[in-house]
Every structure is written in C-alpha cells, then in structure tokens.
C-alpha cells in the first residue's frame, strides 16, 4: 500500500492484534495467580475491576468469537444435552457448552472466574446466565442491578441505587483481592476512556458524510471491540487514535466501505455471527452502507452524549450503565432510530430480528409498523439468529434483501423522492 494509504486496515488489524494479546494474557492469568472477573459488555464497569488487578472475561465476546469462527454449533448442542432448550439464547448455550468442553475456545484457554459480576443492563437473560455460571464454577456472584430506563427522564433514585451498589462492590473487591481501592487510578483510566469515547463518536458520526467513509454496522462491530474489552487502558486509547486516522484518511481520499455507495441504511438488531461474512456480502453486492446501527450502541450510547467522567467517577459510570441501547424503553429506541434515519440521510431501515435475543427482538415487529406505515420509511424485516448457526436461511434472506433493494433502486430510478423521517 502506498504512503498515501498508510492507515487503511488499521481499524481491523490493530483490534485483532490487541484482542489476541488480551486472550493470551487471560490464558496466563491462572498460572500467575492473578484474579479473573467475568462480566457483561452492556453497562460494564471494567475500570472499577481492573483497579483491583482483575483480568476481565466477557462471556458474550467468547460466544461471539465462537460464532464468527464457526465453532458455536458444537457448544450449543453440548448445552442442549445438559438440558437447555432449543428456544433459549444461543450465546448462553454457547458459553455453557464451552465451559463443559474444557473452556478451550478458538481464541485460547479461558480461565475460571474468581468473581462473577452480573452487570445486567438491558437483558434479563444475563441474570439466568450468571446464576448458571455461579453454580458451575462455584464462584461468588455480585448482582449489579441496573434499572431499566422505563420513563423518558433518568430517575435520580435509580442512579443512587447503582452508585450504592458500586460502593458495595468496591468493598467486596477489596476483601477478595486484599488490595485497596485506588481512586486516582480510576480517575486516570476514566480520563483515557473519555478520550477514546470521543474518538469513537467522531468515527460513528463520520458516516453522516455522503458517501460515508465508514460502515456503522459491519465495520463497527470490529471497531467497537477495544472500547468494550480494553476500556481505560493506554492500548484502548492508542487504538482509537489510530482508527480515527484511518477514517480521516478515508475521508481525504474518498475511500468508502462498500466501493460505490448506492444505498444508505440504518440497521437495527445484532448480526448473525456464524454467517457474518455471507450476511455482509448480501448487502455489499447492492452497494449498501450501514450509516448508523443500534447494535453498535449496546455497549453504550456515546453518540447520545454518554461519557465517563473522571470528575464524577461512580456517578458517570452509573449513567453509562443505564444508557446502553437495550436498557432504553421502546419509545426511546424508536426515537433514536428515527433520528438516525433523518440525521444520517438513510434510504431505509433494516431490522434484523434474532430469536436468541428477546431483549432486542420483542418490539421490532411493531417498530416495522411505525417506520413503514406511519413514517413512510422503507423497512426491511428479516430473521435469523446471532449465535445459532441452524437459524440461517441464506436463500430466503438473499431473496428478501434483493427484493428490498430492487424496490429501492426502482424508486431512485423513477425519481420518487425517498421519504425522510420526520425530525
């Protein structure tokens, strides 16, 4: 690659490298006698746990990796042998099956937890998932209860409750590790996190450009990984500085993620990890760019002003926990998608409904009604699964996707105006 394009590929490659190193550190933790905490991505409190020297394991990330590396099927079947129903979340079954297969993941050996922190934000399945892990690993479980955003305004009582629990978690971590809580270190890490979040928002919002230099769904799932798994570390900040340089370079040279941009869409719902590449290609062949997505907000609605704040460490962490996408009530979610359609000048909305995740999927059919019938925004509704490779009908999906974009293409050819969402 010429000097003019020296940052291209950085976003994908550097995160891969950093995640590889992270998994390597994880596999070495037991031999070094270092503590390991398991937690979830949505509303995670990484900086609080690394303060006590915990290595962090995210069972969702393990399940996601197994999906994309096509090993999920065997683990899911293993969990079903243990009594898990075909109708429950594939992520959970993947993780439980992996645990009962010796925790040899395609990314490396996963260490057992010294502490389970169920920071459930927006997904009640997390509770059942960690109850099972507590039983299988015989590890202590701390339930960090994050109330749902059930009213439009953020409840002060909810925030007090979350902050109070964090203080209790700090006391527990001090007891478990024998280390004192270091508030200066927390502030330092949160300052880095905040900077990384600023970069991430600049990357996301670059997709407002026409054509867009960035795909906020198919690319964002890679670009968001360091912010979810390495938050607060110097590496995390270094990653986003480099990733932003890649995006700037794309802007300068008119490089886009889909070759010629023909259609701009907003995507709602998680991707089908076991068939990620095939799914992406179904859109790429139509020159589709996802200019905004909701899945890239499950780990925090940073583009809606959410930021960690070293001046208000626990309070800002609590606000962050409550402001992850699936922790918002459906009205807030709909308004967000509507704003995305408008602000990012989208031609349509794609809803990918997955059976595994009711937290996402229940309500999506109603969202389709609102967008297609009330707002007049072309909406495609398709179904598969985020983890279970059995629920993916390639031919059927391709037909639906082709028909949708044929319709949009015809609409553009015949100069029918694309209806914009009411602001």
């Amino acid at each position, binding site marked *: 690659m010429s000097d003019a394009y020296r940052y291209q590929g950085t976003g994908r490659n550097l995160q891969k490298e950093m995640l590889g190193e992270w998994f390597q550190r994880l596999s070495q933790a037991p031999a070094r006698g270092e503590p390991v905490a398991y937690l979830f991505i949505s509303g995670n409190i990484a900086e609080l746990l690394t303060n006590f020297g915990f290595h962090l394991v995210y069972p969702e990330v393990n399940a996601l990796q197994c999906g994309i590396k096509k090993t999920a099927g065997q683990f899911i079947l293993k969990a079903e042998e243990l009594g898990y129903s075909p109708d429950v979340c594939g992520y959970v079954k993947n993780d439980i099956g992996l645990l009962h297969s010796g925790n040899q993941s395609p990314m490396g050996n996963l260490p057992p937890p010294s502490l389970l922190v169920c920071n459930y934000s927006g997904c009640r399945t997390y509770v059942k998932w960690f*109850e099972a892990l507590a039983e299988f690993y015989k590890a*202590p479980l701390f339930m960090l209860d994050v109330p749902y955003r059930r009213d439009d305004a953020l409840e002060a009582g909810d925030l007090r409750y979350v902050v109070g629990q964090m203080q209790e978690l700090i006391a527990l971590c001090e007891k478990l590790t024998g280390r004192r809580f270091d508030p200066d270190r927390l502030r330092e890490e949160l300052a880095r996190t905040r900077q990384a979040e600023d970069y991430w928002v600049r990357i996301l919002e670059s997709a407002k450009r026409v054509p867009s230099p960035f795909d906020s769904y198919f690319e964002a799932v890679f670009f968001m990984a360091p912010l979810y798994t390495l938050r607060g570390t110097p590496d995390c900040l270094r990653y986003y500085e480099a990733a932003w340089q890649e995006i700037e370079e794309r802007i300068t040279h008119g490089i886009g993620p889909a070759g010629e941009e023909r259609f701009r869409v907003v995507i709602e719902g998680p991707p089908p990890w076991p068939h990620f590449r095939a799914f992406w290609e179904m859109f790429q062949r139509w020159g589709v760019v996802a200019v905004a997505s909701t899945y890239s907000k499950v780990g925090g609605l940073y583009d809606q002003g959410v930021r960690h704040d070293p001046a208000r460490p626990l309070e800002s962490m609590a606000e962050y926990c409550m402001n992850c996408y699936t922790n918002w009530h459906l009205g807030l979610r709909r308004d967000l998608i509507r704003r995305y359609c408008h602000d990012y000048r989208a031609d349509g909305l794609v809803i990918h409904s997955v059976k595994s995740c009711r*937290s996402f999927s229940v309500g*999506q059919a109603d969202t389709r009604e609102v967008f297609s019938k009330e707002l007049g925004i072309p909406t495609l509704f398709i179904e598969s699964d985020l983890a279970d490779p059995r629920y993916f009908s390639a031919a059927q999906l391709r037909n639906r996707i082709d028909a949708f974009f044929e319709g949009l293409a015809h609409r553009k050819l015949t100069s029918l105006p694309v209806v914009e969402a009411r602001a």
Partner: protein
Amino acid sequence: MALDALIAECREWFTDPEFRRLKALRAETPPLRLIGCFPVYTPEEVVLACGMVPVHLYGGGTMVEIDHADSRLQSFVCSISRSTFELGFTRRLDALDGLLFPSICDVSRNLSGLWRRNFPDRLAEYVHFPENFASAHAVPYLRHELQRLEAKLAPIAGVAPGADDYRRAFALVNRQRQAVSELYALRAEAPWKAPLADAYAVVRAGGMMPRGRHLPLIEQALAEWRESPARPQDRVRVVLEGSFCEQPPLELLQTIEEAGCYVVNDDLVLGQRWHAAPLPLEGDPLETLARHILERCVPSAVHHPGPQGRGAELVRKARESKAEGVVFCMAKFCEPALYDFALLKRALEAEGIPFLAFEFEEKMSTFESIRTQLETFVESILLFS
C-alpha cells in the same frame, strides 16, 4: 351457593372471552377502577390502597385466536404475551384503566413499551424490582419505585392514598393470602378433597375480583372441601413447577390428576402467594412493602435467588410436601422457566428425586401425548421407587 356453582362462577371470571364480569364491575355505581397486572407479581397493594381493583391477567388462554398480535410479536415469543396483546387489540380489555408489567423477563419488559404505543389512552407502566437483594440500597430504591408507581396510579384513582389506606390494603391482602395458604395446606395434606383444577379456579378468580368479594367464596369452598367425603386413590404425590407466568389450560391440570398425580404443591398463579408471611401493619407503609417484597417473597424463576441458587429450594419444597416426584410443566418459549430447568434438574438428580418435564402452550387442546408421559412417570414411581 352450591360448590359447583361457586366453582363455575370462579371459572367464568377468567374463561369468558368478553370479560363480562369485569365490565360489570366497571358499570357499578360508582364505577370501580380496574388496573391489569401482568404476571408474576406486581405490587397490587399500591393499586388496592388507591381504591382500585388489581386484575391479574394471564393471557387469553383458550379464548382467543391470535390474529392481530402476529403483526407485532414474532412466532418465537411466548403465547401469553401474544394473547394478551390480542385481547388488547380486540378491545376486550377496555374495562381496564391501565396495565402494569413487572420485571420478570425481557418479553414482559418490552411488552410494556408495545402496550404504551398501541394503547396510548391507557396507563402502561413497567415496574423494575431490585435484583440485588443483598444490597443495603435495594429497600430505598424499591420504596422510591413504589412511590413512582403510586404517583402514576393516583391521578386515575382521583386520590392519593394515605397510610391508613395502605394498612387497610395490607390487611385485606393478608386475609386473602391466609385463605389461599389454608387451601394449599389442605391440598398438601389431603389433595383428594379439593381437585386441582377446581382449587386453582377459586384461587385464580381471587386475583380478578374485588378482594373483599372473593373472601367469602374461598372460605366457603375451603369449608366444604375440608368436609369432603372423597377418599384417597393410589396416586403419586408431585410438585408442579414451571407454570408461574403463562398458565396451563384447565384441561391439562385435570389431565395431570387423571394420569395418577396428586399435585401437593405448585407455582401456579404465584403472584397471589407472593408474600411468605403477612405484611406488617405498622411503620411507613411503602418502606414496609418494599422490605417485605425483598425479604419475604417466595422463591421463583423471575428473581435472582442469591448465592444458594434455586435447586436447594425446590428440593426442600419437594421434601416438605412429601412429594415423590417433580413435574416440570413449562410454557413454550418461557425463558425463565427453561433456563431454570437446566439447573433444577441437576439438583433433583443429585438428590435422586424423579422428575418429568414437558412444555405446554395456553391454547393447546390435545393432551394425549402428555397423558402418556405422565402415566409412564407415575408407573415408574409406583413400581420402582
């Protein structure tokens, strides 16, 4: 009233697709205000203190054909959510002034949002119960949440409840729960005296009518069942588990007994037996209620059980009720029940307690396959245990 007529009346409360008995309450002078409560437990004490009637809704059962709800909820979502939505769409729940959804699962949570958009003229409120029972901050949080709920209900009631209103509500709830507990105690001791489907109907109707009107009904039924001349049969004592939200059809409950089981404990209509002890009548009512919900609620699949897990509790329940086995009767697509099953079965296996598991849907109409499974299960216990 004869016992048969009493049971028929109780059944009518929840099997009439037009909910005429609810509509009649609304037509009284002065009209009663009705607030729907989605399972498993909603703080009905706040509704009662506001002078309104909490109406426990358990979906459409066998009463409705799913038509409109298909356009809003996917096929992998549990029946109770779809049928409740259908009842709303077909205007059969118009007698209700609002509907409350508790934090039991992601489906119930999102359903509150669906309800809000599709029925904007009625209250639709989601109640988030604490999951961190060990936290010192859980009681203040829940008190605040109950107060938030009260603030939403008071404008509908037209009056904000005072401490005395709460105490009266608590006393009423305590009396009703006492009667239900006595019925469960009778069934644990002599299940042949009060057939499962009949006892169930009497308890379930109590969640739909004004509580003061239910008390004489359940007390009469209880008195007659206690004196029943029915004699025990050669059946197996079982605990029924997994039907805490969506309810099995009455015919399925009958099938379980006909196949040779005495259900000596269960988690049916669990919200009406949520408190394991009477609510104290002294102190700040909302704090008392918050503390009671957190510290004295029954174990269930919909709230985190703490470090001891749920397996030990199920084993204790089976032992205490001298059950010879456990029957898992789980609603299809019910995630809390299906997740718990994987862990509960381990606990039963470790203790050598036999179990049988099957799934149901509220609209199912043939039970032969389940009957055969049950009969085999019963025989295996009678012959080999």
